[in-house]
């Protein structure tokens, strides 16, 4: 991780701590939402941008995490930590099961398996009413934090979830800039070569998928606990598509890209929602297509190109391994 990344995170942390002093309840809630969805977009980033595997069913993990956390609280009367652990644990198991099948397959097949798994989970969410209550969803009382602070208190929940999200993002960045992250990108570029070099390709892909699924599950669990609500819409394929869109628009292969994409597009949706709610899915689809065709490497890739162009004037271009899109 470069110094710029550490500074970005530190800046983010300071911003989050200062924000309540200058902004109201709407901005606070939106900030938490942006951070949680950024984690979700980052899970696509890990999988697609860094390892080169696409998932069209990631809302399945988001929703399962959300339901795991919510059901822990409503059915088992568990605490906050248990609920979050359930979100991560359940999606870890699910991800390992899916990955065991999916990583045997390449490109198209892989993405199709994730699409089908996502759809099946959505069907289960809408069909298994006794457990999920389908579209109507389940509202529940939010648990306590360390037994003293109630998460129902907006300030407590704001600080808790935003700081947790930033720490998680920090950890994921750390992971992606570690040798493991470099290995993932090696698989993205050429997994045959990685295999010849003796790396356990299938197991590494499973690891990437599992980390990604757990991150999506954790973001889902956090979202459920933050809003005190969960419904089958958390599993919807539209959400899967949105996650892909956020990551692609921001730049799936960079560290900041998915966060940038999620923040920008969700903020845009909130601001424009009253005008555009009727055509929102059309907008999502168009943005996906346009950003794939014209925005290679996403917004982060575009910034990188500008920076490289400036640097190239002064000196020969440096190797930009961690950035750009998969080829």
């Amino acid at each position, binding site marked *: 991780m470069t110094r710029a990344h550490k500074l970005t995170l530190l800046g983010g942390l300071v911003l989050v701590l200062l924000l309540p002093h200058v902004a109201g309840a709407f901005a606070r809630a939106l900030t938490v939402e942006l951070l949680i969805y950024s984690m979700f977009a980052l899970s696509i980033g890990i999988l697609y941008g860094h390892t*080169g595997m*696409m998932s*069209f069913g990631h809302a399945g993990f988001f929703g399962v995490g959300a339901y795991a956390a919510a059901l822990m609280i409503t059915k088992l009367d568990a605490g906050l930590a248990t609920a979050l652990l359930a979100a991560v644990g359940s999606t870890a198991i699910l991800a390992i099961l899916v990955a*065991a*099948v999916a990583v*045997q*397959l*390449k*490109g*198209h*097949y892989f*993405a*199709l*398996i994730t*699409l*089908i*798994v996502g*759809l*099946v989970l959505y*069907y*289960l969410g809408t*069909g*298994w009413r006794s457990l999920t209550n389908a579209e109507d969803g389940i509202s529940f009382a939010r648990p306590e934090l360390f037994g003293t602070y109630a998460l129902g208190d907006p300030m407590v929940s704001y600080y808790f979830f935003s700081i947790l999200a930033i720490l998680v993002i920090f950890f994921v960045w750390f992971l992606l800039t570690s040798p493991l992250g470099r290995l993932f990108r090696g698989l993205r570029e050429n997994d045959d070569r990685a295999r010849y070099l003796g790396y356990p390709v299938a197991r590494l892909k499973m690891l990437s998928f599992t980390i990604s699924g757990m991150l999506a599950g954790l973001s889902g669990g956090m979202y459920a606990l933050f809003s005190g609500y969960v419904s089958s819409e958390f599993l919807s*394929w*539209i959400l899967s*598509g949105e996650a*892909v*869109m956020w990551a*692609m628009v921001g730049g799936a292969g960079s560290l900041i890209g998915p966060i940038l994409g999620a923040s920008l597009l969700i903020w845009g949706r909130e601001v424009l929602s009253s005008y555009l709610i*009727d*055509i*929102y*899915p*059309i907008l*999502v*689809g*168009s*943005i*996906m*297509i346009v950003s*794939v*065709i014209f925005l290679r490497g996403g917004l982060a890739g575009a910034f990188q190109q500008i920076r490289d162009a400036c640097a190239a004037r002064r000196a020969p271009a440096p190797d930009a391994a961690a950035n750009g899109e*998969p*080829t």
Partner: protein
Amino acid sequence: MGLEALAFQILNAVVWAWVLALLALGLTLIFGYLDIINVAHGTLYAIGAAISWWLVQATQSPQGGFLLALLVAPLAVALIGLAAYHLTIRPIMARPPIYSLVTTFGLMFILQHALFLIIGGAPRSAEMPISTLIPILGRTYPLYRFVMAGVAAAIILALWVFLHRSTYGTWIQAVQQNRSVATAMGIPARQVVAVVFCLGSALAGIAGVLAAPVLQVRYDMGIDIIMDAFIVVIAAGFGNLFGTVIVAMVYQIIQAVLAMMITPLQAKVLALLAVLVWVLMRRKGLLERERLA
């Protein structure tokens, strides 16, 4: 009684499998020849069904509207496919195929929601063009379902003849095998590719027209069936023409038999698990047989 019900379930499954195979063939055709998976394929099917429903409403004649739809819907859907091809596939043709998954996924969002804005969220039902009931095993069964399966089977046969016995079919094979050599021999490769995409889309449109009188026409009806189509295509291996028909048949029968014992939802989930196990068991064969037989 139980056995009789089972027989009807299986009959239903076999009849419906032809429509499913038609839809899956559109997918597999586009993949086998162009290396593109059209995620929006199910939505093209829904558009075909919606056109059929609309024409029956507009002409006030179930037969006339249906026959008209059989002609109009494939053309209209092929045109949509052509536009979609130029907007979402052509610009990224030179890049890895995975990008086409994202653009056609985006296309699905656009088309499906456009359809929602046009026909609304409520389910619509189109009248059957043939209302005759024929007695089988002491029950009655709608003749239309046999006609539906027959039309689907005839189109699948025609597709095979077209691909293997016509000059244009040979061009398609040539472009698939080696595009640059084919171009050098004077085959209009760009046109061939666009035609394959249109053809695959048209198949989805016809499947939609055939399904409209049997199912409820909904803007999101493509989502339900595209999952089945993907499962069939994955299990059969991409580009395998007759394998696709057989797998569609087996898959439908398994689901029908399961649905006798458990809920349709559970049957669907079980069928998916079965396919996953199947894929795991013969993953090598699956990756080897990727071209049209």
